[in-house]
């Protein structure tokens, strides 16, 4: 098996989600990649949690400032993996200030309630049971897109309001200054021989 399976599709279309899929199983990687591509997502697959961290640039190695050339919008990871488990990967991502906002979804073939709760408590966006179906991916994509849209609206709504507020504030300040100047001049005439009109 190849050392590192890093396959990404380069594109400058920013409205598409870029998903990082992490799974140690070659078959599962192939399936999840297809599911995501058919749902119009850009996909990068890696075969372990360690490789995922390397890709994001979180592995502590100063040399790798992150192999990614595209911002990651979603991380989908298998739970049971040798080395770093999906849960441990989730924790590392949520601990990092740069990546904690990225939604992380855990996949597992085992329906173990305490495991699910543990992941959701740690901040997982969702927990999918394998085999993952197209319906699951579509639902997930909608959830993520809606979340992204809501955030965008929040910041864009703030801007015109903020600008208006700033303008009013400025007017007020200017008015205040002018009033003070006028009062000052009236109270303390500049030249002795100046007569008040």
């Amino acid at each position, binding site marked *: 098996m190849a050392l590192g399976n890093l396959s990404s599709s380069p594109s400058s279309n920013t409205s598409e989600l870029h998903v990082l899929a992490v799974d140690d*199983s070659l078959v599962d990687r192939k399936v999840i990649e297809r599911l995501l591509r058919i749902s119009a997502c850009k996909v990068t697959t890696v075969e372990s949690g360690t490789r995922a961290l390397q890709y994001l640039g979180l592995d502590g190695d100063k040399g790798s400032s992150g192999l990614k050339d595209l911002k990651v919008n979603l991380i989908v990871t298998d739970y049971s993996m040798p080395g770093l488990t999906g849960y441990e990967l989730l924790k590392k991502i949520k601990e990092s200030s740069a990546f904690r906002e990225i939604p992380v979804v855990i996949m597992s073939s085992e329906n173990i309630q305490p495991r699910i709760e543990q992941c959701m408590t740690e901040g997982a966006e969702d927990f999918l049971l*394998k085999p993952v179906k197209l319906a699951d991916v579509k639902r997930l994509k909608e959830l993520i897109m809606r979340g992204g849209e809501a955030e965008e609206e929040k910041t864009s709504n703030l801007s015109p309001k903020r600008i208006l507020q700033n303008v009013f504030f400025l007017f007020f300040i200017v008015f205040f200054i002018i009033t003070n100047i006028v009062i000052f001049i009236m109270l303390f005439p500049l030249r002795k021989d100046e007569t008040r009109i």
Partner: protein
Amino acid sequence: MQRQVALIKQSLFDQGYLDEQFVELEELQDDANPNFVEEVSTLYFKDSARLINSIDQALKRGSFDFNRLDSYMHQFKGSSTSIGASKVKTECTMFREYCRVGNAEG
């Protein structure tokens, strides 16, 4: 010939060798990716052969490392589930159950 293939496929479903996950995979195939099912199946067979070989080696060694066997079986079960090989999946589950109770005979 196509009819024969269809009949064989149907019998695989009827006998429980394949389940609806296989159908899901077939639906992911389209004109842009006409060989998807073939590619996944090939990967599955290669992966399975590797795992079966590892399991075989482990069993031949005599001293049963149930944890290792369970780990191999977990991987095998995982990929079988993803491709829809339900009978294989069932067998894996049984195998894992034997591992869990330490039943070397099973």
